[in-house]
């Protein structure tokens, strides 16, 4: 127990870094993912192909490889980022945006086309069809997968610990030269740090899923 109290500032700093990485990564991923989803549903075939290629590429590559490219591959192209936090954040954003794009696209496709046809038959312009009819219904379908992507992003941020970012998992590797009992305490502390974020998020997502099931 005392080892936890001794290292509390380090643990808190790691927890804060995990939180910052996750939140900023989520914001970036949502912005980029929406853009990608717009590419994938656009009427222009080259743009559709670009979106499809990006998503397939990043969904089939391990996140660790993406981190490698950002941290060690970009400097080879003279595009180095100023610090490892930014390259880690960029890797997380690029990787997660592919899954956000797929979630948004499946949400849009889940809206019955009859809804949009009726809206168009009533004379609504495109903006109103999207904003008043399609998007509100799509959002209901999109929230549970996006919740899962958020939880996965929080867990994926742990990989940044191997690329010189001092977040929660890095605390464990930093303090790894302790006795077995102290290790259990530190491991418990780090685990609780992650559970504080992932368990409530998982609870909210399952509550939302249950509400959705009732609505259907």
């Amino acid at each position, binding site marked *: 127990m005392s080892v936890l109290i001794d290292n509390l500032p380090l643990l808190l700093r790691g927890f804060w870094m995990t939180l910052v990485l996750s939140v900023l990564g989520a914001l970036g991923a949502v912005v980029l993912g929406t853009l990608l989803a717009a590419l994938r*549903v*656009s*009427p*222009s*075939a*080259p*743009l559709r192909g*670009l979106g499809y290629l990006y998503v*397939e*590429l990043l969904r*089939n*590559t*391990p*996140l*660790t*490889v993406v981190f*490698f*490219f950002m941290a*060690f*591959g970009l400097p*080879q*192209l*003279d*595009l180095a980022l100023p610090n490892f936090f930014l390259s880690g954040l960029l890797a997380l954003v690029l*990787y997660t945006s592919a899954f956000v794009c*797929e*979630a948004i696209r*499946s949400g849009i*496709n889940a*809206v*019955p*086309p009859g*809804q*949009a*046809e009726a809206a168009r038959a009533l004379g609504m312009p495109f903006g109103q069809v999207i904003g008043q009819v*399609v998007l509100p219904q799509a959002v209901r379908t999109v929230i*549970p*997968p996006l919740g899962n992507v958020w*939880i*996965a*992003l*929080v*867990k*994926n941020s*742990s*990989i940044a*610990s*191997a690329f010189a970012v001092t977040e929660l*998992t890095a605390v*464990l*590797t930093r303090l*790894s030269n302790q*006795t*077995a009992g102290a*290790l*259990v305490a530190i*491991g418990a502390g780090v685990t609780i740090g*992650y*559970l504080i974020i992932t368990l409530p998020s*998982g609870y909210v997502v399952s509550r939302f899923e249950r509400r959705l099931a009732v609505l259907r």
Partner: protein
Amino acid sequence: MTSVLYDVPGPRARARNRMLTAIGAVVVLGLVALALWRLSVNDQLDGDRWSVLFDPRTDVPQAIGNALVRTLRVAVLGMIAATVLGALLAIGRLSDRAWVRRPVTVVVEFFRAVPLLLLILFSFIFLPALGTPISPFAALLLGLVLYNMAVLAEIFRSGILSVDRGQWESAYALGMSKSQVMTTVLLPQAVRRMLPVLIAQLVVLLKDTSLGYIVTYSELLRTSRGLVEFFGNTYSFQFYVAAAIVYIAVNVLISSIARLVERRTRKNRKVKATAPVALPDTPTATGQAV
């Protein structure tokens, strides 16, 4: 054909689409040209840089091939162990006895909420401190199995719950016991319906083997890093691209197998009594079944 977003295009919409397609083609070509220009400016497109990947005298293709085999080995072993344990956990979570159900639920929810890297690192660091030496292979395998058995337990559980209630109601009416119902009626249909999702989870597991890099297991990514350190930084881009292409090729192959199995399962008579399940579109590096 109308879709959610677009009506059948009339003449003006067709003209607009043609213009958008032209603009899109220009944008894509511009991006490709920009990428190629940046690469050539840094001499990344030199033939002799890329030839090291294909020249058997440098031992590079053999090293990459061996690393792929080691990656596949840990992935397949992990998948088999996780499937067996996951099925057991799923059955335990559906048990009628609370003293079985509650601890199993805690275990499954715990291992699903913790990052996989943390599990691997903890096995790698903690077990030697207790006195049992552990190889990087074993630590990676242990972490992968612990994490994926929880994910697969959820997959199996949703598969079992998707079987029509008529199936188990008639099984009970015939006088079968709970375990007979589970093993002869529910599990076979659930597994058949869940097979594409299981194969998709194998893709996730393969990607997660790259975490072996962090515990020094010589899987594909670590071998690439070792090759970079051996051959020097000039080849680093080429080696990372090679590793990425191998990962992508293997994963695309397995994903297409999953889609093929899913299409055949939909037409299979033996899954008529289960609800159709969509392939998870949002699994990520550290695994998340939808």
